[in-house]
């Protein structure tokens, strides 16, 4: 194990800002993509459903 303590881990030998800045933004990007994807998947299904109901009327 490389790290003596949690604070040691978070500081990353003084480069904490850069390391966590990179990992954080990556995680954020992926999170945003997943959220957008979930929303658009739901939207598509609801919209198609609505269009289908119009056609049936």
């Amino acid at each position, binding site marked *: *194990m*490389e*790290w003596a303590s949690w604070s040691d*881990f978070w500081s*990353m*030998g*003084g*480069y904490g800002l*850069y*390391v966590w*800045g*990179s*990992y954080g*933004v*990556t995680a954020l*990007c*992926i999170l945003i*993509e*997943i959220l957008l*994807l979930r929303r*658009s*998947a739901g939207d*598509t*299904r*609801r919209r*198609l*459903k609505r*269009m*289908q109901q119009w056609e049936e009327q």
Partner: protein
Amino acid sequence: MNLYTFASPVTFYHLAGKLIPWFTWSAILLTVVGLYLSFFVAPTDFQQSEAYRIIFIHVPAAWMSMFIYLVMAFWGAIGLAFNTRLSFMMARALAPTGAIFTFIALWTGAWWGKPMWGAWWVWDARLTSELILLFLYVGIIALWAAIDDIKRGDRAGALLTLIGAINIPIIYFSVKWWNTLHQGASISLTKAPSMAKIMLIGMLVMAIAAWFYTIAVALVRVRGIILERERQSEWVKEILERET
């Protein structure tokens, strides 16, 4: 024909539905393993201290950005040659994820460059090519957005992807050539002297995780596209009855 049964949207919709959980869980598992390797197993680099740990996402993201582009070009070429609708849908489903990985590669490159080179941005051959790759992704997505007609959009996007794919090696080579002439920063992450085996394994695990993630996301997206395009057909109506 056998190939065409898998290429039919109905079959693929259901197949994708079954595959998505597998790829999702594999991606999660591999990410956990990869993160463990990159933070707890890989040793401190004696030159770059802990900052080098950024490469565990930077390098896989850069690989993915180029790989996804090539896969898109492949699907585009297949679609143009054999007129298979599904391959165009795959290309469309991959593009946003490719663009995101390109952005991540650029972002992490900058955040790695700041402590190492003392500058957020250097016109290094790799970073510059990556930037141009991002432009290409944005161009393709913008072209799709501008064309309303599905068939035209599919084919136009595929042609643009193809000419980009032919151009990328030339762009990379020209930027590299330009870079050596101007004596810019040419330090390369992967050529760092202390490239230990464990680092390579860590990067590979992360790259495979990213690949599985991409497949899962693209499959979800392609299912949405299939529903949208096949909305007139009976099977889509049945699915909508069931799922909502």
